Every structure is written in C-alpha cells, then in structure tokens.
C-alpha cells in the first residue's frame, strides 16, 4: 500500500495558504476576507499536524488546538467588529473602511 | 478484509432499513400517543388501528408536486434538506446497539463502526446538523424562513454548550470517549448506571433538556412556531424535501435518545442482574401483550378487531417464544434492553409534546445561558472534583 509523501501534505498546506492570501488580497467583502484568514489558519494547522506526524510528537496537535481556540476567539470578536462596522457605516466593502489612512 | 466489508454492508442495510421504518412508525406512534393524551383515537382508517398510515403518508409525500419557489438560491435550497438528513443519519453510524456477537462464524459488533472518539464524533456531526436548517432558512428567500433559520441556529449553538458539558460528566466518570467502553463501565444493574452510580442525575436532566432544544422539539420548537413564523425554516419546502426535514428531526430524536441511553442508562445492560431472571422479562411482557390482544380479539370493539388483534396476539406469542430461546438470547436481549430504554426516552419526547406549552424566544435563550449553562458547568466541576478525589 503506497504511502503518501509528507511533502504532499505540506504542499497542499502551502496551496491552501496561498489561496487564503489570494482571497485576502483580491476580495472586497470583509466577511470573505475574514474567511480567507480562517483558510490560512487551517492551512497552517495542516502543516502543524503533518510535522507532528513526521516527528512522532503530539506537540503539533497542541499548537493546532491553540490555533483553533484563538481562531474561535478571533471569530467572535472579529464578527462583532464586522457587525459594528456595518451598523455604523452600512458597508461591508473593505476598501470603504479606510479612515486610518495618512 | 472482504468479510469485514460484506458484514459492514449487511449491517448497513439492516440498520438503514430498520431505522427508516422505525422513523416512519415513530411518527405514527407519536400521533397515537398525542391522540390518546388528548382522548381521541388518532389515525385509525388506514390499516388496522391506522397501522398503514405511515405508508400512506410516504406515498402522499412522494407523489406530491415538488414546488420550487422562485427567487430561491437554488443549489443551497436543494442542498439543505439533503444535508439535514445526512447529518442525522451519520451519527447513527457510531452508536452501538449491543455487545459483540457471533453470526455465522464471524465476530462482529452490533454497531456500524466503533471509533475511539465516538462521543466527539456525535458531537461534531450534531454540530453540523444546524447547517441544514440555517441554509434552508436562508435559501428560501422568505422572511419567516430566514427568522426560523436564524432562531434555530442560535438555539442549537446555545444548547450545544450545556449538552457538551452534560456529556462530559459521565465521560469523566467512565474515563473513556468510546461508546462501547462507556457501556462496559456501566455493566451490571441499574445501580451501576452512570445516572445512579456516577451521580449524574443532574447531567442527565440537563442532557435531556438540551436534547429537546437541539431537536427543536416542544417546548423548544421555536424555529417552527406556527403562530409566529408560519412553519419556520421549512415554510417553502414541500413534498419529499419537506419529508426530509421531518425525517431528520425524528432521526435526531432517535440519536439523542440512544445517546442518553448509552451515556446515562447503561446502554444494553439489563435493568437488574441476569441471575435474578431479567432474561425472561421480554418473554413475560410479550406473553402479557399477547394475552391482552387475544382477550380483546375475543371481545372485539370493532368489526375487524376480531382478526387483527388475534393475529397480533399470535405474533406476540411467537415473539415471546423467540425471546425465550437461548440461542438468540445473547444478541436479542441486549437489543431489547437498548430499544426499551431508547423507546422510553422517545415516549417522554412525545409525552412532553402533548402536555407542555412553548417557551418564548428570549426565555429560551435566557434559560440556556443563565440557568442550564451554569448548572452544567457546576455539575462538571463537582464531578471532576469527585472523580479526582476517588481516583
């Protein structure tokens, strides 16, 4: 039974990460941008779990676990921020939220 | 390997058939129970005592015109009921009905698959179940449906927390995540069950309450509160798609009842030890049922009862004989106990539906966060201290 090379997992992780970055860069909806961040986090998690397999240690799982928890906390706060932004500016376009410029 | 696949496929077929039939008849049972609570006969026309009513319903639903409302988000609208049923069926896969048995020389479990994170799997799948309802509500492009979907998703994530905490307590007591081992630690009689032995009566009550909310049942059936939201998230659904949601609800009921049985009520373990004759209880019950049926067959209230009830009496007698046969007892008895306990809880679902009024929405959320969640937390804390103290 053929084994899956470790590098495939890592490459998959890189591809997902790059797609997350692409979403972040090219999308305008704040919600989609936020989801792109989650996608990147997931890609990183995959790397962690893969490393954990390679090193035969459980540590990578723990890092993944913490990333998940932080992502959950981030989602709670981030979505609350999105709600507030929408309430105050009635827009979900990320380019319209630029009052910090200059 | 091949045998494993074949056996699994056979089990799959059997379980799917039995379960889907059971779900169809669960609906009949519910209508009957509520009817009797309200002192009316219930379904009575199709078949003896309305026994063929489910069949008629299925035919009706399949042959109904499948309405496709305009301005719906078509892919998601179609995807939602599918998802709901899928998730409901998925969790059955890891629920064990009985111990290891030997059939035709092959050892196998009375379970589709045993994974050592069974409880987590069920939690994961049930947490996915909310999507079906949320998507259905959103894709319908209908404000009642949307509100129903929103309500239901909020309700389900809210009640998932106390439910998970309530599940954690017996897991702590039994020190496993595998559903089989969970049952193994409750072996013996009623005093060894987690509800008694582990002192998990509070967790059991929280679990049941949360289960009512998770399955959107009375008194927590806000998503489909017809006086406020027409029919809630499935307002725009008809025909088989509507039936899918219906089926998902009943499947979820079965799942949570089975979970409660496994977690708190000792799974397929008998009520009292075998050495005091618990093996003969099913036979006794069936004999009593048969005698009752035969008596009523002899003194029929209706014209047809003379034949149907007598027939049932004979069937019950045969069943009693089967249960008394030592050869099949090893796998039939656990099944009996499991079904009896699960059925009991399912009966409670119907009983409560027939008697309790509905909550208001803010009461519902307040109850989850301000009462159920703290109590579950406290229960978990106390349990963990006790477990740490004992071990």
């Amino acid at each position: 039974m053929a084994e899956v090379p470790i590098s495939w997992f890592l490459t998959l992780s890189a591809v997902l990460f790059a797609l997350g970055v692409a979403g972040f860069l090219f999308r305008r909806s704040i919600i989609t941008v936020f989801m792109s961040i989650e996608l990147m986090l997931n890609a990183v998690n995959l790397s962690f779990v893969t490393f954990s397999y390679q090193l035969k240690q459980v540590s990578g799982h723990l890092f993944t676990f913490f990333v998940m928890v932080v992502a959950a906390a981030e989602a709670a706060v981030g979505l609350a921020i999105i709600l507030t932004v929408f309430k105050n500016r009635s827009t979900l376009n990320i380019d319209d939220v630029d009052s910090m410029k200059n | 390997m091949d045998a494993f696949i074949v056996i699994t496929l056979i089990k799959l077929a059997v379980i799917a058939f039995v379960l889907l039939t059971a779900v169809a008849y669960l609906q009949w049972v519910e209508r009957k129970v509520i009817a009797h609570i309200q002192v009316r006969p219930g379904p009575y026309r199709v078949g003896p005592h309305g026994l063929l009513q489910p069949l008629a319903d299925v035919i009706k639903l399949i042959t109904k015109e499948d309405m496709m409302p305009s301005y719906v988000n078509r892919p998601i609208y179609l995807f939602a009921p599918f998802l709901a049923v899928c998730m409901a069926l998925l969790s059955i896969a890891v629920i064990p009905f009985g111990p290891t048995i030997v059939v035709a020389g092959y050892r196998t479990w009375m379970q589709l698959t045993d994974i050592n994170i069974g409880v987590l799997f069920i939690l994961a799948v049930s947490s996915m179940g909310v999507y079906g309802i949320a998507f259905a509500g959103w894709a319908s492009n209908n404000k009642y449906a949307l509100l129903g979907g929103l309500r239901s998703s909020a309700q389900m994530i809210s009640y998932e927390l106390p439910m998970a905490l309530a599940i954690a307590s017996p897991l702590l007591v039994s020190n496993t995540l595998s559903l089989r081992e969970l049952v193994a630690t409750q072996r013996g009689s009623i005093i060894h069950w987690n509800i008694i032995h582990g002192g998990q009566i509070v967790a059991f009550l929280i679990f049941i309450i949360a289960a009512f909310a998770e399955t959107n049942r009375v008194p927590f059936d806000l998503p489909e509160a017809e006086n406020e939201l027409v029919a809630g998230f499935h307002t725009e659904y008809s025909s088989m798609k509507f039936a899918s949601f219906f089926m998902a609800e009943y499947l979820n009921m079965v799942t949570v009842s089975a979970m409660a049985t496994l977690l708190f009520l000792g799974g397929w373990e008998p009520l009292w030890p075998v050495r005091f004759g618990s093996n003969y209880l099913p036979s006794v019950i069936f004999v009593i049922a048969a005698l009752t049926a035969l008596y009523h067959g002899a003194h029929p209230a209706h014209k047809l009862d003379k034949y149907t009830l007598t027939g049932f009496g004979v069937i019950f007698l045969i069943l009693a004989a089967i249960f008394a046969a030592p050869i099949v007892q090893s796998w039939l008895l656990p099944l009996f106990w499991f079904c009896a306990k699960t059925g009991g809880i399912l009966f409670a679902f119907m009983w409560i539906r027939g008697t309790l009024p509905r909550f208001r929405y803010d009461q519902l959320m307040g109850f989850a966060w301000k009462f159920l969640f703290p109590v579950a937390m406290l229960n978990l804390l106390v349990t963990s201290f006790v477990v740490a103290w004992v071990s």
Partner: protein
Amino acid sequence: MQLWLIPILPLAGFLINGLFGRRFSKGLVSVFAVGSVVLSFAWVLKTVLALGDLNTAYSEHYFTWIQSGAFTVNCDFSIDRLTAVMLFVVTGIGSLIHIYSVGYMAHEHGPNHGGYYRFMAYLNLFMFFMLVLVLAANYLVLFVGWEGVGLCSYLLIGFYFTKKFATDAGNKAFIVNRIGDFGFSLAMFYIVKTFGSLDFGTVFSRAPGVSEGVLTLIGLLLLVGATGKSAQIPLYVWLPDAMAGPTPVSALIHAATMVTAGVYMTARSWVIYTHAPAAMETIAVIGIATAFFAATIGIAQNDIKKVFAYSTVSQLGYMFVGVGVGAFSAGIYHLVTHAFFKALLFLGSGAVIHSLSGEQDLRNMGGLRKKIPWTFWTMACAWVAISGIPPFSGFFSKDAILLAAYHHAPWIYWLGTLTAGITAFYVSRAMFLAFFGDYRGHEHHIHESPPVMMVPLTILALLSLGGGFLFKIPTFLGTLFPSLEESEDFTLMAISVAAGFLGIFIAYFMYVARPAMADSIASSLKGLYTLVYNKYFVDELYDATVVKPVVEGSRAVLWKVVDVGVIDGVANGIGSRSRDIGGVLRLLQSGNIRSYAAWVLAGSVAVIVALGVAGGLR
C-alpha cells in the same frame, strides 16, 4: 540567635505604619511604632544576655549579596562588645524617644494631615537602618545602614515639608553628607583593592601586613565619611540647620545615634588607624578643632536648639579626640554618656518648646524654673553632666578623653579643658536664660508636658546622673581595644573640673547676677561677637567658594552648552529626523487593508528568499 530580628522589628513597624497608618487611629500607630522598638530593645537584651561575655564576635550569615569572581559580599550580622554597647544605646534611647514622640507629636495635623503616622514610620525606618549599620559585619552592609540613616535624616529634617527652611535644611544635610559618602565610597574601593574583601574580620586581620601609606590613605578617606556623618570640620555645617526637624528627631538622630555613627565607624576600624598614626593625628586635630570652634559659636546663639546643636558638634569633636589619641574606649564612653545627657537636653528643650507652644528663642524665655519645675530639674541633671561636674556621667567620659589626650599631646588637653569651660559656660547660659530671671515671653498658658514625655525625661535624667559610674564602658571594652598606660592624675582632673565650675560661675555672674553685663561685653567686643554670632561666616564662605561656583558653572556650561546644545540638540534632532522619515513612510499608509496585506506578503517572500539564500532551509 536571630540577630536579624533586631532590625527587622522596626522595619515591620515601618511597613505596617507606612502602608496602613493612614487608616489607623493614633493609638494603633503608637502601639506599632513604640512596640516594635521596645521589642527590639528586649531582643537586644535577651541576645546579649544569652551570648554571655562576648569576648569574641558572634556572627550570623544570611545570604550572599554580591558574588563576582573571587570577590564576595555577604549579608552578615555580627555582634561583639562594641556592637552590644551601640545596640543598647540605639534601642534604649530610641525606645525612650519613641515614647516621648507619642506625646510630642500628638498634635501633629494641619497642613500635613496624617503627619503622625508618617513621622512614626520614618522614625522606625531610621531605627532599622541604624541597627543595620551597627550590626553590619562588613563595610558594605554598614554603608547600607549609613546611607539609610542619611535618608531618614533627610526625610525627618524636611518633615515639615510645607516650610521652605525645613526642606532647605534637609537638602543641605543630604548634599553635605554626599561629600562624606563620596569619601567613604572611595575608602571602600581602596579597601577592596587592597584586601580583596570588605569583611571586618578579613580586613583587620590582614591590615598589619599592609604598608602604612595605604592604610593612612584608607583611614583619611574613611575620616572624610566620618566628618560628614558626624558633623566635623569642615562638613559640620548641616547639623545646626538640621534642627528644623521635630525635636525628638534632633534628640535621636542628630544627637544620640546617627551623628555618632562616624565615631562608631572610626572605632570599629581601629586596627587600620592604629597602623596609620598620621590618620589618627588628623582625627585628633580635627576633633579638638571642631570641639573648640563649635563651642565658641554656641556662646552666641539665641535659639535654644541651635545652642545644643553646636554643643553636639563640639561634643562629637571630643569623641573624635578620644578616638584620635588612641583612647577608643574613652571615645565610645563619651558617646554613651553624651547620648544620655544630650538626648535629655534636646528632649528637655523640646518639653520647654512644647510648654511655650513653639517658642525657641532664649530671649523670650526666662523664669521657667517655677513654671515647669519637673522639666527644669531633669534638664539640670543634663546640665551638670555636660559641664563635667563629678560624679555625674559627663565627668567620667570627658575626663577619660582629656587624660588620654594629655598623654598624647598636652596642647590638646589644654585646648580641651578650655573647651570644657566654654561648654559649661554656654550650657549654663542657656539654662539661666531659660529658667532663671523673669519671664520675657508672651505665652501665658505655660504648662508641664504630659507624663508620656516626662517619663523618658526622668529616665534619661537618672542615666545622665548615674550613667558614668553605672556603665564602666572602658572596662567593658577593655578586651576589645588596645589598652593605654593611663595613670590617674588628680591634678589634671581637678583642672578640668575647675574649668567646668568656672564656666558655670561666669555664666551665673553674667546672666543672673548682672544681667546687663552680657550685652556690655558683647558691645565692647563687637567685632568678635559679630564673628561668633554669625558662626564665623562659614556658611557664607562655603556659599562663595563652593556653592556659587557650582551653581554658576552649571548654569553657564551644563545648562547653556551641554543641555541646550548637546542633549536638546540630539533629542530634537532625532525627533525631527524621525518625522522626516515618517513623512516618507506615511505614503505607504494608504488605509487600504489589502495593500497592507500585499506588503506583508512581500515581506514573507523576502524572508523565505533570505532563508533560502542563507541556507536556513536545508
């Protein structure tokens, strides 16, 4: 033996009162403040009794404070006979003065509300540092106590911080002491360089093998420190001004304990000094010069506390003479008796001031003998003691010093005897002006002070009277210091006693019998009087030679050139350059989140490339 308990108790008192005293009632503050010191005294008593004859030093090691290469400084306490004497003086007098303060500071509120607990906390903190100083087993721990008491002195002189003269006096004390501490620090550096250790035991055991020149240098540098702390020429100027603090502070810190730290330190370093005769000679000369000089100033002062302040400077000079001529035990003897009678004089003058509701000027007193007899009689005990009238305490110690001085160099003896006469004169003058004649003041509700103040006064009065033959300090310390071949010389003794009586008599003649005479003498010797009255213009001299140049130099060079030109230039330059760079970088801050993300991505690509180039990804 838990030596650490001795200083820790007052520290605990300080912490409790300092942190929570604001919420405590006055009674509770008093209980903690006085209780901690009295307990400390009790523990000293128990410790000394338990340790027996103390012929050899008993030390305790607590922890290693500094370790650097072969050089180690431990936090050690040790106790020998000298320390025991000092411990009794510090905790004993300290307890009495704490009790006294309860009465004296009772009305402390007004502009600095809550002054009472603050005062008590400072006093306890002072006790802690003083005890650390005394118990120290090496120079560095001693220095901790040394600096700590300096800090407390500063805090307590400036206790009435709403009055400018008080804060100025505090600053003056602190700054003048810095000069002395600078000398002390240099001495410590030199000790480390020479001996490789700061432990008393190590230093003193190795001292005989070190060249005289080095020891002289160390001795002189230590002396600089001692002159600062003990108010000797040329650094005595802070002590008279320190009277701006509350009177119990003057009694405890600026008469009985802290200012004697220099004497204690010098006596503690006797091994170094005995091997450096030139340094010893310097001590003796500075001591006798200070004694005489300060005594003459004391004649012309009108502030009762100033009189006693100069008296303190003068008496400290005596102690230095004792140490300088090699009579270490006599110096310590005088330290102890001086602690009794000078604390008494200050506390008594405090009681007088208390009775007169704050009046300090002798010219506004008079005839108080009848009105506050108890205060008068206790102060009279101190009066006879400081005047060297036998058989009271001052007589024994002063006589021991003068005797040793005569054997060392007769001129010191003669000048010392003259100073003794002057001392008797000005103390008598103060007493006569305050307690005899007619009342010249305006306050009419003159009353005896409360018992809580009078009890310490009485105890100190008994000690002043009998302390001389009760505590035979020279005999007790005889095993510690090298003994001098002293023969009792009744002629010398008689001469010094006669000088004391003469001083008292002249004062009686001038201020009681012929009150007009003082003024006529003052006017006939107008130039001399003005000179003495203005304290020989030393403060003005220092002001012109040291303070002014420093201030002007700071203003012209440090402020105008260094601060404005260099420091401000650098700071402003960095600021404006940053702003320029920021102006360029601001263009990147478009507010567009996605462009930020693009830059982040560019950065991560750069990092990966850099890692790949550097070979980190292998």
